[in-house]
């Protein structure tokens, strides 16, 4: 088992292996994303029953919730990749961390935008300082910080390291931020406006949601792979195997 992990680690650390293996994965990931997306959206938009309170506006959930969940876990992945880079100096990890940042930020933005749009018909306002919303906004800022820091550093390598450090510090802080914001909000503000937290969901509503969540993760993997391959091409351009690709 350990042997196998070590081998996997070394393989993952090899840009060539990654580039070649993902060549095979891409069509499958794209297919799953496409089929899942189409199926989830058709089921969610057309077949799921309308919410008895919110009517059809609740259908935003099928993009909102997957995006929100993904945005949070992407930050974790980014920090872990950054840590791997800091500790073992694995270049691949740095590239992966670098590519996750803008994608995670995009999903964070999607969650915020769709949430805000959803808020208008449900709460009558685009934005309230609810705990969830606030911590999501702060997450977006953390993403922006990581990206801005990366591009501000003089050299690529110090950019990788700096943003990895920041991502780790942010990772420690996310639970603290979340906790404090939850606590602040439940204390300050009576629960006039809350995300609808229905304990149980209609199964017809739930299935498309699950499909969309899985699809979002697949799509995320696809995006990360595409961007990482670009980094590989750029940084390994002097290796003979890349030259072969360039010449073809």
């Amino acid at each position, binding site marked *: 088992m350990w042997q196998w992990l070590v081998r996997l680690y070394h393989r993952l650390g090899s840009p060539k292996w990654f580039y070649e293996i993902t060549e095979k994965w891409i069509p499958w990931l794209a297919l799953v994303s496409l089929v899942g997306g189409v199926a989830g959206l058709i089921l969610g*938009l057309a077949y799921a029953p309308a919410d008895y309170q919110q009517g*059809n*506006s609740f259908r935003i959930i099928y993009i909102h919730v997957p995006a929100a969940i993904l945005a949070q876990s992407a930050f974790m992945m980014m920090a872990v990749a950054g840590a791997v880079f800091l500790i073992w100096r694995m270049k691949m990890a740095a590239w992966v961390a670098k590519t996750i940042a803008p994608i995670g930020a995009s999903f964070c933005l*999607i969650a915020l935008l769709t949430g805000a*749009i959803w808020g*208008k018909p449900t709460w009558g306002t685009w934005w309230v300082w609810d705990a969830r919303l606030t911590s999501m906004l702060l997450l977006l800022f953390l993403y922006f910080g990581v990206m801005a820091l990366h591009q501000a550093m003089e050299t690529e390598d110090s950019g990788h390291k700096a943003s990895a450090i920041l991502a780790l510090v942010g990772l420690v802080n996310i639970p603290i931020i979340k906790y404090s914001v939850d606590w602040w909000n439940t204390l300050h503000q009576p629960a006039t406006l809350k995300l609808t937290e229905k304990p149980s969901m209609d199964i017809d509503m739930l299935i498309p949601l699950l499909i969309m969540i899985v699809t979002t993760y697949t799509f995320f993997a696809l995006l990360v792979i595409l961007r990482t*391959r670009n980094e590989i091409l750029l940084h390994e351009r002097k290796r003979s195997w890349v030259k072969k690709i360039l010449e073809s």
Partner: protein
Amino acid sequence: MQFDSFAEFIAMGRHGFYVWLAYGLSALIIMYNLLAPLLRRRQIIREQAQRLRRERNRSSQVENNDAPSA
């Protein structure tokens, strides 16, 4: 199927604007995320192939220049 007609589907019972705005914006962001790496890939390949060609040319020139003296 929850909707009787396409028009109804679009209208989403008063909430059409919000639903479609949300999905529209998301689609834009997602499309950007999908297209950006693909376009970037093409750009990288174009640039690097050019660079390679330039280097090839230069090194072959140098060899040509060197040949008589050697």
